[in-house]
């Protein structure tokens, strides 16, 4: 078996809080972040969204980046910095430090602003606007600000991107190519994604109701979330480690470009694979942080796959997207932080807006917050377009 990879810290910025502690408080106080559009300019004002409650100038201040920086990069740096600080590690340059970040649309917010003038006349539009278009550019803005150059890369597999970044980071450590990896994802809300999800007719005009029989779709959110992964050698003698990343798997549903297979084949294979790597049985899992987007299709496929793997009485499960909205490329990173924190502090997160159990499923999500539970092993699911299904398992370290 692999030597464990440790979670030494984490950072989150999203629509329910600009740091981890604020997010936990929002769960505790049962305060989901859905609100009308406030910062993004779009024609689609009917859909509630979960924006980070800060304009770009505020984020520029918080991150220390120029105001012209893509919003995703600012969110990314804020969360990555919090993750690093919380880990208590010294300087980036003291280790072979890697930065593995995920996002789905790079600096699309700037490209959107560039395009109207460009479409009028291809010689027009300020080029600076498209200089951050590539997903990799976002990662580099942050890596450069943190002083990381040993190894950097960017992953983009739609809504499972952030989870895949953690897997790749753990494997860099396992293959002795890095000692410390900041891994996760970031995505700002953009008109491109808001309009895109609108064409798919899976945006709810009310706050989303994941795993509820009356669910009608998702709410888009934005944010960033990163963990600091460290090797067994770096972890040795360190106090305050959160958890280990004990298992992970990525499988493909190979069913449809956007829809999940009715029985959740890919979801099942990913969860099964992660358990297998961790050397665990389904009964060992004490909490599942669901992908739980709130769409008809996802929740049914995911739910059936869970029932198939865990039987009729699965462990407590909830979708934190009922608070944060679906943050796309960031979600795997944000929810990894929540899951690792679950292990550390015994946190069970509530599923907001829940009233009615899905008739196809033998279980419903938990709806109240609690802390201090003994959660030895916690699972986090992330599924994306292209049939991309990922699952992470976090465990208490030590014996």
């Amino acid at each position, binding site marked *: 078996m692999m030597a464990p990879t440790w979670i030494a810290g984490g950072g989150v910025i999203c629509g329910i809080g600009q740091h981890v502690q604020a997010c936990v408080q929002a769960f505790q106080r049962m305060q989901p972040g859905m609100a009308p559009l406030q910062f993004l300019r779009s024609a689609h004002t009917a859909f509630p969204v979960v924006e980070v409650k800060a304009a770009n100038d505020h984020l520029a201040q918080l991150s220390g980046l120029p105001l012209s920086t893509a919003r995703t990069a600012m969110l990314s740096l804020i969360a990555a910095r919090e993750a690093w600080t919380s880990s208590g590690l010294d300087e980036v340059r003291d280790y072979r430090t890697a930065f593995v970040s995920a996002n789905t649309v790079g600096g699309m917010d700037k490209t959107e602003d560039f395009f109207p003038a460009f479409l009028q006349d291809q010689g027009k539009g300020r080029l600076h606007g498209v200089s951050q278009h*590539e*997903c990799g550019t976002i990662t580099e803005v942050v890596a450069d600000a943190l002083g990381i150059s040993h190894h950097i890369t*960017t992953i983009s597999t739609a809504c499972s991107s952030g989870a895949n970044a953690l897997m790749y980071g753990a494997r860099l450590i396992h293959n002795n190519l890095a000692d410390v990896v900041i891994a996760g994802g970031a995505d700002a809300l953009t008109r491109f994604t808001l309009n895109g999800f609108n064409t798919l007719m899976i945006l709810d005009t009310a706050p989303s109701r994941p795993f509820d029989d009356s669910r009608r779709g998702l709410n888009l959110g934005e944010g960033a979330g990163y963990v600091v992964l460290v090797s067994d050698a770096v972890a040795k003698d360190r106090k305050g480690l959160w958890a280990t990343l004990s298992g992970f798997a990525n499988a493909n549903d190979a069913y449809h470009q956007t829809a999940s297979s009715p029985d959740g084949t890919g979801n099942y294979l990913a969860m099964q694979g992660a358990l297998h790597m961790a050397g665990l049985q389904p009964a060992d899992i004490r909490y599942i942080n669901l992908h739980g987007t709130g769409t008809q299709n996802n929740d049914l496929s995911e739910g059936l796959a869970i029932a198939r793997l865990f039987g009729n009485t699965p462990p407590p499960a909830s979708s934190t997207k009922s608070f944060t909205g679906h943050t796309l490329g960031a979600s795997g990173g944000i929810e990894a932080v929540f899951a690792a924190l679950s292990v550390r502090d015994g946190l069970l997160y509530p599923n907001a807006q829940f009233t009615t159990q899905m008739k196809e499923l033998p279980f419903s999500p938990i709806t109240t917050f609690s802390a201090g539970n003994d959660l030895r092993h916690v699972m986090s699911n992330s599924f994306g377009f292209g049939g991309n299904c990922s699952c992470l398992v976090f465990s208490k370290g030590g014996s």
Partner: protein
Amino acid sequence: MKIYINGTGAISPQQTAVGAAFWPAVQDYTTNRLKVVDPDYKQWIDLKQIRRMSRVIKMGVGAAQLSLQQAGISVPDGIITGTAYGCLDDTGVFLQKMVVQEEQMLTPTAFIQSTHNTVGGQIALLLGCHAYNNTFVHRGFSFESALLDAIMFLREGEARQLLVGGLDEITHFSHAILQRFGLYKTNPGHSGSLLQLHNKGTIAGEGAAFFVLGAASTPHTKACLAGVQTIYKPTDNAAIQQATTLFLAAHGLLAADIDLLITGRNGDVDDDQWYNTWTTAHFPGKPEAAFKHLCGEYPTATGFGMWLGANVLAHQQVPAEAMYSGTVPAKINNILMYNHHLTTHHSLILMQVC
């Protein structure tokens, strides 16, 4: 651990998809935008689907199928792609309609296909492949990241044969924008003479190159992939020299052991200076091949370079038009490829006979 290149497939501005060792006859261009030579995609994809697919999806699926056919397998144990730009055409279509139609009456197809992992997902869908599927989108390291992921995966023993590729497309919009950044020559002349020009700019290219990489050799094995190294924003040329020395040493080689160099020369006077310094300092007089006068410059062009290198090792010949300097050695055991993209993303790829 050796990594075996058990199949290769390329769809490129050269006729690389017609069953020749390299290409039947070299294609010369006089524009600064090279376009892939489309093979008959119907041999791999249903006509209904072809109509819906953008060029980058088609070239990706095609190159993937070519490499699987060569390797004699139908379903790999994982699919890993690298693309800097992703599905630019679908992104552009959706963006344009969003702006022109003021966010009204949009249709989902372009949005659905704009996702960066569309090609990897489509290949999985067509092959019915439920295994590991990942997509790297890190500029000039996209293909190298995919290779590194594959090498780790094979070392971990979880997979026997992986499908790995790099691809990018040029679109009308992207070319217009990148041209404004001053990346391309306005009077490029003949692409065959590109590397003899010593002025500003290069020519834009595109393409898809896929490989079946395995943990064991098969009757189809073409060559071995010994290692990949990326160097991000080196402070100066000395950093590349140092990285090269360490990289060779890690593989138990000296500069003298390298039989052929492949460089990413692209005809831009500033870009090429890095290659000049590198070859002069490390490998004086060493035979050198190049490839960007054949495929153009793009962030995943090293995929084409690796396709060339693997086939050079397999066939023990170098197409005359690919040689930049020196004479082709009688026996080619070790090929070292050095590439950089926009002077910020540098990589070394070592290929060997098996």
